[in-house]
């Protein structure tokens, strides 16, 4: 094993089997990300499969950045939900804020304009100082990111139960709208297709943030907290919408 990855031994074996050789360090890094809990939803996939995804009004189904439904008169609405449980459990402000950053990106990626956020938050007992700390800063992270890009958090729910004490749940959702004929789908499948990666400058602190979601949280997880979260992407948001 040359690279440090968060995949299980069984998954690593599967990677070697599919490729027929030992992947190099870059390949390990890429597979580690794409097969992470965050990107592939490997543990929740069987549950997600139970949800309805087909219908007359479904314009873009599962597999893309966000789901799109026809809302009539030439308009479509798109939706995205994301969990940011693990990052929020060790760094509530940056953890929840980057959750908003991720889902607003998924709305923009379809060419849509983001208009609102929702959140569903679950913490341990409100009597516990740890949960109070998480509650305060998770809410602040969601609110601040929305304020920065000018998109309001319009509704949400919060629950306190001691079963969430060591593993808070931070779910955020976003929605936007787009003309049906202006939907953009980002895929480059044929050789020669051009891939353009757009975004704000970022620090090294995000490296391995995605694969962190695959790990099991324990008392040492705090050591994984990034030193300098840089999450303000408001200028990128504006640049994506110079319409």
């Amino acid at each position, binding site marked *: 094993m040359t690279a440090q990855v968060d995949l299980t031994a069984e998954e690593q074996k599967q990677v070697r089997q599919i490729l027929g050789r030992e992947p190099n360090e870059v390949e390990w890094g890429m597979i580690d990300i794409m097969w992470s809990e965050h990107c592939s939803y490997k543990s929740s996939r069987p549950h997600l499969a139970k949800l309805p995804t087909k219908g007359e009004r479904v314009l873009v189904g599962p597999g893309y950045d966000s789901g799109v439904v026809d809302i009539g008169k030439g308009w479509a609405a798109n939706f995205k939900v994301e969990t940011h449980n693990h990052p929020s459990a060790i760094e509530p402000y940056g953890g929840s804020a980057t959750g908003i950053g991720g889902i607003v990106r998924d709305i923009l990626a379809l060419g849509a304009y983001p208009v609102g956020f929702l959140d569903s938050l679950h913490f341990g007992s409100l009597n516990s100082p740890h949960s109070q700390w998480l509650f305060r800063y998770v809410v602040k992270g969601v609110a601040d990111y929305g304020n920065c890009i000018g998109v309001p958090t319009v509704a949400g729910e919060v629950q306190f139960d001691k079963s969430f004490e060591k593993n808070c749940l931070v779910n955020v959702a976003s929605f936007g709208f787009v003309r049906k004929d202006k939907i953009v789908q980002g895929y480059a499948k044929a050789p020669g297709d051009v891939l353009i990666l757009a975004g704000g400058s970022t620090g090294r602190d995000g490296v391995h943030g995605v694969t962190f979601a695959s790990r099991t949280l324990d008392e040492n997880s705090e050591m994984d907290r990034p030193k300098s979260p840089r999450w303000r992407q408001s200028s990128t948001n*504006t640049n994506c919408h110079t319409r």
Partner: protein
Amino acid sequence: MIAVIRFPGSNCDMDMVHALGDVLKRKVKLVWHREFKGGEFDVVVLPGGFTYGDHLRAGIIAAFSPAMKEVREMAKEGKPVLGVCNGFQILTETGMLPGSLLRNDGLNFVCKWIRLKKTGGRSLFARKVEDFVSVPIAHNEGRYFIDEKGLRELEQNDQIVFKYVDAGGNETYESNPNGSLSNIAGICNPEGNVMGMMPHPERACEEILGGKDGLKILEVLK
């Protein structure tokens, strides 16, 4: 023709264009800051938002942009210049308006409707405004501050345009949402053609938004 300048991170630009163009039927153009030429316009508006992600300090990076040199020229020519929220922060950072905007005294972002009293007759923007208007605020750094001498000058020159007041029209501690010195919500330059204000008149331009008092402030722009 009115220009609304968009910087990276502006986020109330479309609202301002909607209020001026769709509601007030003014000729208005949304201009990317790099393409802005003051000579092409009669009025310029700096909308709210988080220019350059508020890095270093709210408004300071935009304050050093070439677009702001053009805005300064327009102001010298006597053309109306309005800065709302982050636009006000940019105007104080350029020195076009005195004082500065510090972090709210409650250390939290405040978003709510407030009541303003018109206190200054000098500002061009307050001409159509009755004594009181209700408009929303939404900011984290809106606590207006200036030294004692500066405050005296503002008062003597009639440069304080709006103050936060309660329902009865009194300047109280409770009606001051961010701890601004002397309840100041908006000020103008001595000539009256440059105004900065923390509240958002463009968010109060239709009944469906909760009120349209903001139009009374924007109405003078042509």
